[in-house]
């Protein structure tokens, strides 16, 4: 299972892998190939067609599905196995985006590029090992806020990053 995010030119901005299988079995080349193929598939699709794609061989066969959602310039793609509900994942993407929006205040593409680690953290609060962990947006936001506070308190002790450069 993995989560992908791509902008309209379909170069991946972010790929977050939750599945160990991707790492143990396949080299990084194959990962790149998966990304390319996934976004090739998704990008060709019209707005009004189904948001679910049954898995090809690359993403681990018929048990896996690609579920994607298109927001303005970005595509969010989740790859999940058959134990997840399709519509549920579609909603989860919405929760993810809404959470991003809350954490970044009017999130835009650049936020996601410059704060890859943060995006990962948010996703890690929702999805773990490819499985749905938390769906309650407030809970997620609370966790993220707590992390930010921790981060600030720690950073404060050290010098500011600017000077260090």
């Amino acid at each position: 299972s993995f989560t992908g995010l791509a902008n309209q030119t379909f170069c991946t901005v972010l790929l977050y892998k939750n599945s160990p299988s991707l790492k143990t079995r396949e080299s990084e080349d194959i990962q790149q190939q998966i990304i390319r193929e996934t976004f090739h598939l998704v990008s060709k699709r019209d707005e009004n067609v189904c948001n679910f794609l049954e898995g090809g061989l690359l993403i681990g066969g018929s048990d896996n599905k690609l579920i994607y959602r298109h927001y303005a310039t970005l595509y969010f793609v989740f790859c999940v196995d058959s134990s997840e509900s399709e519509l549920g994942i579609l909603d989860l993407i919405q929760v993810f985006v809404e959470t991003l929006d809350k954490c970044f205040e009017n999130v835009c593409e650049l936020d996601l590029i410059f704060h890859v680690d943060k995006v990962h953290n948010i996703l890690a609060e929702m999805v773990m090992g490819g499985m749905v962990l938390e769906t309650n947006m407030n809970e997620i936001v609370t966790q993220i806020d707590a992390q930010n506070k921790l981060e600030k308190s720690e950073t404060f002790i050290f010098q500011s990053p600017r000077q260090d450069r």
Partner: protein
Amino acid sequence: MSTFVLAAPIAGKSKEAEIKRINKELANIRSKFKGDKALDGYSKKKYVCKLLFIFLLGHDIDFGHMEAVNLLSSNKYTEKQIGYLFISVLVNSNSELIRLINNAIKNDLASRNPTFMCLALHCIANVGSREMAEAFASEIPRILVAGDTMDSVKQSAALCLLRLYKTSPDLVPMGEWTSRVVHLLNDQHMGVVTAAVSLITCLCKKNPDDFKTCVSLAVSRLSRIVSSASTDLQDYTYYFVPAPWLSVKLLRLLQCYPPPEDAAVKGRLVECLETVLNKAQEPPKSKKVQHSNAKNAILFEAISLIIHYDSEPNLLVRACNQLGQFLQHRETNLRYLALESMCTLASSEFSHEAVKTHIETVINALKVRGVGVKCSLLIQNHKTKSSLLQHLDSASNASLSVAILAEKYAVDYSWYVDTILNLIRIAGDYVSEEVWYRVIQIVINRDDVQGYAAKTVFEALQAPACHENMVKVGGYILGEFGNLIAGDPRSSPLVQFNLLHSKFHLCSVATRALLLSTYIKFINLFPETKATIQEVLRSDSQIRNADVELQQRAVEYLKLSSIASTDVLATVLEEMPPFPERESSILAKLKKKKGPGAGSELDDGKKEPGAEINGGMEPSASTASTPSPSADLLGLRAAPPASLAAPTSAGNLLVDVFSDSPAAAPGLAPGTDENFLRTECLLMPPPYQPGESKAGLGPPVPWAGEMGWFVCKNNGVLFENQLLQIGVKSEFRQNLGRMYLFYGNKTSVQFQSFTPTRLPQLNIQTKAVDPLVEGGAQVQQVLNIECLSDFTLAPLINIKFRYGGTLQNITLKLPITLNKFFQATEMQSQDFFQRWKQLSLPQQESQKIFKANHPMDPEVTKAKLLGFGSALLDKVDPNPDNFVGAGIIQTKSLQVGCLLRLEPNAQAQMYRLTLRTSKEAVSRHLCELLSEQF
């Protein structure tokens, strides 16, 4: 964050600039890591984070792992977090660092700091390797059920355990903790419940008894959620739907067990399901798509559960109706899911009838809703759909459209081959011949998939029971391209042969005939199989086969393989040339299905027999048009076996039609024409006319082009294939005509229930024909024709008969055209011009200028015009090269006077033809008919 510092200068620059910048940065980081000065935690974190970012941009990272592992033992949250992130994303599970990582994780798990514990659990879940499972599989259950564990840790622990169980189920010990896990379903914290349900759903599949108690707990939990008001669950309410994810998970869990035995629990569950179904009918609380999405997610799971139980007829009918509604929904996602559910529903006992009532809806959902929708549904779902449609009895149509769409949206051809073979495997009975012909056509035409296709069919044929269509495809493809996989000892020539031959005896005659052709191709491809194959061909079951076709093939192939030299064999059995690229045969088939009328067996019938010689024939044309049971796909028949003195009487018969014809035809055209005509018909078959079927002239009719030859002639061979030859003699006077049809049986076997029926058009009287036509015999049928008024379409005749076991069905145009009722009229120059002027209205004249298709010989032209029926008037036109004719079309209701003028231009190789008659339609039709003759 520090990444920003790196990202800002990178973003938005060209690729080269980016690479340059990154290489510089990598060198800098490397030197920092290698430097003598020990880095502080912050710098380490910063550089590791940069490396991570660079990796995510798509560049290779081959160092920094150790520094990341060092970060794990930091007691700063941010440092630890980046360390774990780096490891989750970048470290290979078989890395030697795993021991160090495991150590750090162990410390964090024991730290009792919930944040650190969560980080560690996340890392285990994300890496999820066997080594991790070995190290932690026994530790995590303990954390999960410990009373003092924080909710967020419990949540992570549940999913972490699930991950480990999925990768290495043997390492996760079942035990006392399992019953405690079940009780997590009662936990206060919804997040914990959701995670626990995921875990239990997976665990209970292997150990249903250990978790049996979860059913009643799940039902009560579900009941509380479903009946709660939309605000009760506060944060877990998503767009006015209470805890949709948890509901979905609970319904999934319940699908692992049979219906609860306890009546109270069952009653409560049924109530829940009814509530869910009722809510679907309520007006939505929000117009947002998220609201309906969440509601429908629950609804679909409820329906799945109802289908799974298959015991509540009321609920099943309601579920089915709900799905029926979704099938018509404008949202594609819902239609997709509804189809999928419908498919499982169709296989359940109770609902069979209920599903049937939705057949129409299903079919419509598939057809009507725009191509994009359809294809996305079908392509992703072709399996689902074909199995669904097995229940719905109209699968052949559907499989056809699946095949077309698969072709249309094929990503690459190997995918296409896969899809169609899958289709054949799953729904072989419903795959029409056009579909598998098309696969072969595609494979022959693309050399890049040939090897793949050979390999795939070889694998598909390994199945103990495979569909006959698969054997056909397999036989054909291996016969052509078996050599491409012969290098592998697992699919050596003999293995291939034995595999195919193991299917031989279970197949129909047509398939066996095809396989025999495959065998002879094998002899050419793999000389080492020659002895084995000859042995098979020589066996009594082949060479004395009761079926004449099989026997003949066996005899001929055996002979061919023993007398022909390798060169000859190689030439005769050469690889099939590519098919001409034109419209997909299946597409053509679909078009036809939409068109009116019967005769569909005959589609592309007008294909040149000459093309058969080395198999240039397109598959669609072969069996569809040739009523022979032995579809000559390998194209072997025509050439060599014939020259090897095949003992057929076909040749003689042809002559018989003319030499023995009864003297009963007085006043026939000069006999010299006959030979000429006959050879013409055989050697120069009419060109294929792709536009035919679209012209709205009804079903396409074979040999339609031949009609041209009969416009100016009255006798000839109207139709011929491997079984049957039809000869024609005819005479016409005024508005009456008589036609003799001679049906010759070219085989040595009797035709049964032989029934030629004329399709109603002109007033034609026929006499019935004896229903039995002995092998080699000929029967005659007389048609008396009366032309009632002018017409443009030739009348059709339909011939049905049984040959062997198979019903043959042929529809032909009778060579009766309007000009047959043309009576020549002699007149003087003066009269001609006077009448010419009288017919001067624009609609009375029809003119055509066209290129000469034949040498412009005045004598031939004269003969053709006379054959057409008009009188030739000398010395009327001032230009001696021009031809002028006159006559009257005789019909029962009216007579139409016709004048014509033909002006050849030898220099330009063109003609100008002008017709003037008193009736517009007649002018036009005659002009068309005549213009095609030159």
